[in-house]
């Protein structure tokens, strides 16, 4: 499997605090990778590093392309849209910003896949929490990126909206054949979506593997217990 992003011995301090500490991680083509770990473990910083928004103090990051602009789709923790514009216009604007001229039909297809066609002309900031997350994913997908990065895609959603977003991510990844990296605290989400898991704590990847490998290494099938054991091990 081809490696899209390879991070080696990454170190980064912010405000005098070490947030990444000799972190190693590979992101492979076609896989769904879950980055899990407690709050403040360094997950969001790791995403900023992958995106090139933060530079490493030490270590290396190799990407499959010299210029990632327009080649990665990203959904940040807080959904971000242009105010005063509806879902349709936001998708159109970010597609244009990524150098892609999309037809009305193409935009409607992305909105349909993200189950937003009925809300296409509703102001983006008036959508419900679940709809906003789905719109952020639609914006991330419209320019057909090779890699989709989702920072806590189901955080702060009610159970039904969370379930909708989860099944949408699974079907999109399968239909579009793209690599997906997502961060989460929710082990049931990880169980449903991820091919591989990287557990981040204290700024480094302490455990890595498939869910079955981690279950067998810790001798438990209970997902919450598995998470607790990995935190304890650190």
């Amino acid at each position, binding site marked *: 499997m081809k490696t899209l992003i390879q991070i080696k011995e990454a170190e980064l301090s912010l405000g005098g605090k070490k947030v990444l500490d000799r972190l190693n991680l590979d992101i492979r083509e076609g896989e769904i990778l879950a980055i899990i770990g407690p709050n403040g473990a360094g997950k969001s910083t790791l995403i900023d590093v992958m995106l090139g*928004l933060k530079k490493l103090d030490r270590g290396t990051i190799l990407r499959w392309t010299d210029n990632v602009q*327009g080649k*990665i789709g990203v959904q940040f923790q*807080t959904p*971000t849209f242009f105010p*005063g*514009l509806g879902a349709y216009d936001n998708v159109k*604007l970010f597609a244009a*910003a990524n150098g892609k*001229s999309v037809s009305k039909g193409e935009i409607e297809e992305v909105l349909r896949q993200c189950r937003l066609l009925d809300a296409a002309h509703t102001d983006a900031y008036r959508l419900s929490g679940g709809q906003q997350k789905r719109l952020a994913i639609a914006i991330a997908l419209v320019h057909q990126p090779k890699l989709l990065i989702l920072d806590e895609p189901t955080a702060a959603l009610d159970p039904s909206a969370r379930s909708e977003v989860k099944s949408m991510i699974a079907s999109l990844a399968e239909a579009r054949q793209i690599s997906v990296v997502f961060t989460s605290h929710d082990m049931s989400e990880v169980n449903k979506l991820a091919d591989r898991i990287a557990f981040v704590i204290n700024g480094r990847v302490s455990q890595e593997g498939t869910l079955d490998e981690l279950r067998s290494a810790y001798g438990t099938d209970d997902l919450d217990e598995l998470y607790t054991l990995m935190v304890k091990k650190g």
Partner: protein
Amino acid sequence: MRNVMIKTIFSLIAKSIYKDVYMLVWSILLPMGLFIGLSMYHESDSYRESLLVGCILVSLAMGAINTSGFWTMTQRRRGVFKLLKLSSLSISQFILCSILARLLIFAVISASLLLTGNLLFGLTFRATALLILYGLIVIGSICFTSIGYILAGRARDEGMMNMMSTLVAFPMIFISSAFYSLDQAPQWIQFVSKLNPFEHAARIGREAIAGAMDTQSAIVLTMLAFVSAIVAVKTFRYD
């Protein structure tokens, strides 16, 4: 392809700005109220003409500095610029699209003010005057919108942005001859006014009413616009 992309971004940013409540207050309600209110108490056409030009410039400066500053600040806080940084769009293209979008809106607002002057008070302007006024709106938009971006780059939050834009926009208007003569003002105010883009805009506007061009002020304002635009691009912050 590139042109289609820029055109799409320009039109959608214009649509986004058009719905901005700050724009409604600072660029439309304030100058329109000021013009109608003061014109009702002064029957001299020459005063009303000067007032109208002054109000167009207030609309332009307040709209460009306050509104673009707040708009930029809010988008940055929401993370919109982080998403744009990952796109193929460069900072200069984004700022250009924003300035052009604001320019279009200022052109429409100025036309509304001119039309109000004509319908309510019978004011008329020669074609040359209108041409110069619209040239002034183009250069003024670039200059004042860039100043808004520069301030937004320095501000940490909306409160600081509010303070900074007020500290810049109001003195610019007051230390100018847009609404009164500075002939009797202290020397230092007269000196400061020579560096003030709003004063040069006011001088160009005043001359434009007579169908003439203040070339010196036009050159100074163009230079200030150019420098402001470069500083705005250099100091633009994504987060």
